[in-house]
């Protein structure tokens, strides 16, 4: 409590100002669609120190001394707007920014580009969906998570998948949010495609570490995905037809400039094509597909109040039938999220948001053979409510505070089986927990060249019954307290500007995590089980230290940075040695607990404006784990360990209609546990494995290219279309995807041969996607 009191006092004292000031506030949106622009800059042209930026809802507020100013409103890829204002009273000013239709029209905004140097943030990247759509895509499926993999410090779980390892953290240690709702399983088709439909997404923010106090619940990173709000000026239909899926999005005003909606869907059909060929076979009805449905409506109640309701529903559906054997499997799984938000401008310089959030990930497997049947269910369901308040007392402070409550229910593998006469079930029970969080943070410009973002988050997790203790066999009733944890999580990032174009930043952050997942595979799977902290499973704690040098070159056209980090990871989880899935066992009893560390250096050079844009990212890092009960505490490289990771990304606007893009990746081969020896049991060879993750697959590298044809002149018409031609793995590199062992052995005759085989899957893969756009207004 003393720390938080001190923090409050410090913030209060820092905000006291004797000058006569007035506030200008409003919303910044895109002209033609009314989409709010997140992170747009507002600054006084003659004094850029007087500046602010729009929040996640496009709201800005700036309190500055009385006077006349030329205010600049800017946003990447959009034309600047300058407004002359006489500030002798509080003002409200909503601004529409026009996206640069033609390249030449986009004004290069050096103030915006200096964010890299001047902001009190580290390890943070924002991805505009238009940038993502220009990149080469596997099978033409534009995937925001796969583009994030091209940033330094981020690597893919395995080839082709959208799983992310960020600064040595596991996939469960990333906080992935879609309009504030946590998405527990981000992948379709065993993670090969992410659940994020690019047509429904507006913005993606990645925080690799040193996250501000407003974020919590995970110890590694934040991936904050914002859905589009819906066009409130024109009706629009857009979509695309690709090799494996098609997309369709409809949006438009419900009441002009008052309310709008967006509905966006995507469905794969790769296996629908084979249905006619199997309809007369024993396998008739076997199929696999996935789909997503995003929707959102918003309503402007008044100039101070807005409501947003956004939902997501996605499913993978796998059906396998073998009539000859009377065998059938039905396996649906997926996420559902819903977020109801109320934005309210409390005062000219104070903005609040209250959200009610629901998210659910559920997995179901139903299999039957003749009269035998089995169903397996698992999942995680959260009900949350949160409130955040943004307070802009002056241009030197942006104070944010908030609290969040979440009710978790986590269902382990609940198995019900029947042999036609008797029903059987596991006696495992759903686990419940209450998570409470409160935070306060201040983004403070101490001086023109010194800034600090500091804050404190305090989290609390209460595990409640029903529960049977595995320590003392005590049985807890419904809602009875089993175990409670409280973790204070201080965060600080400082920024020291050496000059206008370079700065040094450093930071320390503590984060906790109460919901855990241990994947026994190379990637996250739908069968993975999330479990809460209990008396046995303690909260994971991550402490990250980072230091970086940031410099802009060539009149801010080129951003560079070098960041070093060290992560101290406590209460890490893994399965015990020789673990084999057992649906009847409590999974938490199969865990062992240990520690980890990750450290590295990241280099980043980016050119974000002009005909040619792109970046080079290089990471040199190590990620290690050790567990007392795994190989007697030997330190071993985590499966996330990638000592060298290089990405080179380039986009070139060939002319008004054609864009060429390419990406090259190189990474140290994945660590794996090698087979050490063979031994004979029951006349057959069996394998003995060597030390965990002590061998590596070959180094990984790949080049992808894409040509995008988009007739810009047609963009002024109500209907236009574009083509995306993409080639994955241009030089047909045979990167290892997995290995297997092959035995051809007859011990009695003395003939034996054992081999380890590597399999490469993603060889050269061309694809083409056709996209279209129709708008009721000819200007998009």
């Amino acid at each position: 409590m003393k720390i938080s009191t001190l923090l409050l006092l410090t913030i209060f004292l820092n905000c006291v100002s004797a000058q006569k000031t007035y506030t200008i506030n409003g919303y910044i949106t895109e002209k033609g669609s009314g989409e709010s622009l997140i992170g747009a800059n507002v600054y006084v042209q003659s004094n850029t120190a007087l500046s602010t930026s729009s929040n996640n809802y496009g709201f800005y507020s700036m309190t500055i001394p009385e006077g006349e100013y030329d205010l600049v409103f800017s946003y990447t890829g959009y034309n600047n707007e300058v407004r002359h204002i006489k500030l002798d009273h509080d003002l409200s000013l909503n601004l529409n920014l026009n996206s640069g239709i033609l390249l030449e029209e986009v004004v290069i905004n050096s103030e915006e580009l200096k964010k890299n140097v001047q902001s009190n943030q580290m390890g943070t990247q924002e991805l505009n969906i238009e940038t993502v759509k220009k990149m080469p895509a596997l099978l033409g499926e534009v995937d925001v998570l796969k583009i994030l993999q091209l940033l330094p410090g981020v690597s893919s779980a395995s080839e082709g998948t959208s799983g992310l390892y960020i600064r040595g953290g596991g996939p469960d240690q990333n906080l992935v949010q879609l309009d504030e709702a946590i998405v527990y399983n981000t992948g379709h088709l065993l993670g090969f495609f992410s659940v994020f439909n690019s047509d429904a997404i507006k913005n993606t923010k990645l925080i690799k570490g040193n996250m501000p106090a407003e974020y919590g619940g995970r110890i590694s990173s934040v991936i904050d995905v914002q859905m589009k709000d819906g066009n409130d000026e024109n009706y629009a239909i857009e979509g695309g037809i690709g090799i494996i899926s098609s997309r369709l999005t409809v949006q438009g005003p419900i009441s002009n400039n008052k309310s709008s909606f967006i509905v966006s869907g995507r469905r794969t059909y790769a296996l629908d094509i084979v249905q006619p060929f199997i309809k007369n076979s024993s396998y008739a009805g076997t199929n696999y597909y996935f789909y997503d449905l995003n929707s959102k409506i918003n309503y402007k109640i008044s100039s101070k109040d807005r409501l947003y309701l956004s939902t997501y529903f996605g499913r993978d559906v796998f059906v396998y039938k073998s009539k000859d054997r009377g065998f059938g499997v039905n396996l649906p799984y997926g996420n559902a999220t819903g977020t109801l938000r109320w934005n309210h401008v409390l005062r000219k310089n104070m903005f609040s948001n209250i959200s009610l959030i629901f998210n659910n990930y559920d997995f179901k497997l139903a299999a039957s053979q003749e009269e035998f049947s089995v169903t397996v269910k698992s999942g995680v369901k959260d009900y949350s409510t949160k409130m955040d308040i943004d307070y802009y007392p002056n241009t030197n402070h942006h104070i944010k505070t908030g609290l969040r409550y979440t009710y978790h229910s986590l269902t382990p593998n609940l198995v019900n089986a029947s042999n036609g006469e008797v029903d059987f079930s596991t006696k495992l029970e759903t686990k419940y927990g209450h998570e409470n969080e409160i935070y306060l943070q201040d983004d403070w410009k101490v001086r023109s060249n010194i800034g600090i973002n500091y804050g404190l988050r305090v989290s609390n997790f209460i595990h409640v019954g029903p529960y049977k203790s595995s320590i003392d066999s005590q049985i807890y009733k419904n809602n009875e307290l089993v175990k409670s944890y409280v973790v204070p999580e201080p965060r600080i990032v400082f920024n020291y500007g050496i000059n206008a174009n370079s700065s040094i930043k450093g930071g320390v952050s503590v984060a906790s995590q109460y919901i855990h997942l241990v994947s026994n595979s190379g990637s996250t799977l739908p069968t993975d089980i999330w479990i809460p902290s209990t008396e046995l499973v303690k909260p994971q704690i991550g402490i990250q230290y980072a230091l970086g040098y940031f410099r802009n070159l060539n009149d801010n056209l080129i951003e560079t940075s070098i960041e070093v980090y060290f992560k101290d990871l406590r209460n890490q989880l893994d399965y015990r040695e020789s673990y084999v899935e057992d649906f009847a066992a409590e999974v938490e009893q199969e865990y062992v607990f240990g520690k980890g560390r990750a450290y590295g250096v990241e280099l980043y050079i980016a050119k974000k404006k002009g005909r040619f844009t792109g970046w080079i990212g290089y990471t040199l890092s190590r990620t290690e784990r050790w567990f007392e009960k795994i190989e007697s505490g030997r330190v071993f490289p985590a499966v996330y360990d990638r000592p060298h990771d290089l990405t080179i990304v380039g986009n070139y606007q060939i002319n008004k209609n054609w864009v060429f893009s390419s990406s090259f990746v190189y990474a140290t081969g994945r660590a794996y546990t090698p087979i050490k020896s063979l031994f004979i049991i029951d006349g057959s060879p069996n394998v003995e494995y060597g030390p965990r993750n002590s061998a590596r697959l070959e180094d990984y590298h790949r080049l992808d290219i894409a040509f995008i044809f988009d007739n810009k002149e047609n963009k002024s018409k109500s209907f236009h279309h574009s083509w995306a031609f993409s080639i994955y793995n241009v030089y047909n590199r045979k990167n290892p995807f997995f290995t297997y062992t092959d035995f051809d052995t007859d011990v009695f005759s003395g003939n034996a041969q054992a081999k380890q085989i590597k399999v490469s899957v993603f060889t050269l893969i061309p694809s083409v996607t056709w996209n279209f756009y129709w708008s009721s207004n000819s200007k998009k």
Partner: protein
Amino acid sequence: MLMNQIKIFIALILLTGFSSCEEEIVQDNSDYEPQYVVESYLENANSAFPPYLLLTKSLGFYSKFDTSILNKLFVSNAKVSITLNQQKYPLQEICLSQLPPETRKEILKNLGQNSDSVVVDFCAYIDVNGAIPLLVGQSYSLEIIAGLDTIRSATNIPEYISLDSFWFEDIPKVPNLGYVQLYCIINDKADRKDYYRYFTASQDEVLIPNFSSVVNDFFFDGKKFKFTLSKAESGDISFDDYSGYFKRGDSIRIKWCTIAPEQYNFWNTLEVSRTRQGPFSSYVRIQGNIKNGLGIFGGQNCQTYTMYVPKM
């Protein structure tokens, strides 16, 4: 198993869209030091074999693997003994080459092998005189002294829980081909953990375990439980739509065992380990119960049922 099959099927869906290719990986593990491997079972008095123990050595995965190497795997001149109630019973080493041709032929026949095709000189440590009392619930300890090394283990013989009844049913979808499914009922004992393993054989074939041969009673503890038993298939045949079914007109044998927990863990991890192939699987380390070595010293209590599948 089901989950593995589903993962494999989904992987196949994925792979059909791409052209995969394969290459052999060869790594240097010449510095590998072989370990002792023990395979020994203590079975109740119904067993066709007396207590025996195979003592071999493991070999590097990428090692050359021929007859001479296989012959060298057997460890000779070890002192092997099993202790029950502080009474030590030594086992005697016997190799195939030491046996009279007829005896050798008979043993190999029991192992399902043709004596003409066997070129490896098998050696085993055997309780030749049947001196070891095989008692339910008793603890047995194993000691092997091989050169300067001492290898130890322990197990017990669990109480037998018999199959209550069994019968055959035609496969509804394909009744004319004469394949049948074997059904069984077991009365499981309540409030204790039981572990089972089974073997099957048709006609004169040798009894072999199914590729997934062990099960525990966590699901059906203390219940009268009806279940199917699949015909065990030899590892060298390819599976088809009728794998796992018995055929009308066959004489079949079912060997049903209750096994010690350490034997369940060993076979469970071994069998899962064999199926862990592919991109979405992780390795499973086989969990033996041998100190200073690999393998299994396991107690089991078994009974063999012989039955005839009536013709239509």
